């Protein structure tokens, strides 16, 4: 399923905050058609890494390449328009707008030439169609008219993914999409991720180990800002370093 050339390649990405090295020489290859999970204890640097991939945080050192193109110095906006979309750990939506308008506005980002800015927003067929498709992919097409602030937490998380899809990304950075979800909602989200896999590359930061090992094609384990292991889920499960550093207490609980 995976191709040999990685879609997104991080080479020794490093981020320092004063004396603290939050992300320490992290190298990652993200392939098309794969869900690449990043796991690690709290404070391992997962969210910092996602923010560096999305462009919200600049790298102190290292390089990031998208399809071989050096994008290390690119702003978040430029990366987003090049196809790197993201969701946030804390739900980041427009609560006062309908689900449809949430997605339509995200889709509008595709056409921002100044002379088009005066066109009526709701008259744009492209952004309306894209929004409808994104809602449908995320399983929200029947709820498009509802206010985003008024739907359930699980649906807001789905909306967050739908808004991301509305920008038509090839790389999806998902920061804890399952946070705070019930069993049924988790199930729905996981099948959504499975459906989205073809044609896209996904980075999944998640705490729910069971979920990670169910959907991930590759797993990277971070401890104290460093990658201690990366590989297929079954290899990670049997990796001694991972066991002692991270999964140890988990296994004991099983």
């Amino acid at each position, binding site marked *: 399923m995976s191709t040999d050339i990685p879609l997104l390649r991080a080479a020794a990405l490093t981020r320092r905050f004063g004396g603290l090295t939050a992300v320490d020489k992290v190298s990652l290859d993200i392939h098309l058609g794969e869900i690449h999970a990043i796991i690690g204890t709290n404070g391992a640097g997962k969210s910092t890494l996602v923010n560096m991939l999305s462009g919200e945080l600049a790298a102190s050192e290292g390089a990031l390449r998208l399809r071989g193109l050096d994008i290390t110095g690119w702003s*978040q906006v430029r990366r987003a328009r090049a196809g790197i979309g993201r969701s946030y750990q804390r739900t980041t939506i427009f609560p006062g707008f309908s689900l449809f308008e949430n997605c339509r*506005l995200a889709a509008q980002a595709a056409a921002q030439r100044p002379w088009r*800015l005066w066109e009526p927003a709701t008259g744009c067929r492209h952004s309306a169609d894209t929004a409808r498709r994104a809602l449908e992919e995320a399983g929200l097409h029947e709820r498009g008219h509802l206010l985003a602030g008024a739907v359930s937490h699980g649906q807001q998380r789905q909306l967050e993914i739908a808004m991301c899809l509305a920008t038509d990304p090839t790389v999806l950075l998902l920061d804890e999409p399952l946070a705070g979800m019930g069993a049924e909602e988790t199930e729905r989200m996981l099948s959504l991720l499975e459906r989205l896999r073809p044609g896209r590359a996904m980075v999944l930061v998640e705490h729910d180990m069971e979920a990670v090992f169910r959907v991930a094609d590759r797993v990277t384990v971070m401890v104290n800002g460093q990658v201690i292991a990366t590989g297929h889920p079954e290899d990670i499960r049997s990796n001694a370093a991972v066991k002692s550093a991270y999964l140890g207490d988990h296994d004991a609980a099983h």
Partner: protein
Amino acid sequence: MTRTSHTLPPPPALRAWALPSALPLLALAALLAAPLALTPYLSDLVQKIVIFSVFALSLGLLVGTAGLVSLGHAAFFGIGAYVTALASSDTGPGSIAVLLPLAMLGAGAYALFVGALSLRTKGVYFIMVTLAFAQMAYFIFHDTHFAGGSDGMFLAYRPALAISGVTLVDLELPLHRYYLAAGALGATYALLAALQRSRFGHALAGIRANEQRMRAAGFNTYAYKLAAFVLAAMLAGLAGFLMASKDGAVNPELLSWHESGALLMMIILGGLGSLRGAVLGTCVFILLKEALSSEAIFGALAGRWQLTLGLTMIAFVALMPKGLAGLHTQWQQRRKENQHEH
């Protein structure tokens, strides 16, 4: 209308109150017909309301639509007025076709500079930085002599518009001033109504709701905010031009932060994010101020109009959290709640 349980509710289209959507047009018609009935004093008062409405609408674009609370908006109003006065000649009336765009461009140019710097900050810092830049402009006009210092300056001739020798508009005539201001308000209102419906307006609303998400979707939010800031300043410059033409004089107080603060009160009173709210709030604020400072109505208390106006504002905001424009929905909500209780 009888309310019995077996009759179906009327379809939404009929149930909805049709008047509000026609309200701005009705108001414009009344505005255009008003000079027939107005005394010179009232005509001047209405003109003041009209000019401040343009000014308030421009701040509403920043605060209500884009979510940028500026406490220095009067600077652009004052610059528009000063550009008009400084570019007018002493030998004959200056052309509206030159002075009006010049006033708007002057305000816009300063806004490009102020916005480029201040939009790097957020929230309370943005408020303070816009205030600082406005005070800077205020003191430049107040403490230097090129524009008359603290006394300000007069326009020897009010602007006029002539095409091949035929004077079409002469702002020395009160009626011409009145209609130019009314036309400017109509045009500003129509422009901002179109903006709110446009892709630009929706993007600004998105930035107000959640800037982080807008950036993640690929919007250069800084550029959007700067464009809104400059556009709002240009409209404030238009109001400044009208003010200078109305009074035939300018002074530094046009740029003072009192003016910016009063303007914020007008749009909050009217209801943030609503165009008709901005106009309504301006009307009520100016009429209140006029009434509260009138000795004929309030006697000795008229000298303390700041106090009474302040208390009235507090009462208004406490009773109408959504502003005057939101009263309609506020009442509907209350009625619905009452129905639930019974």
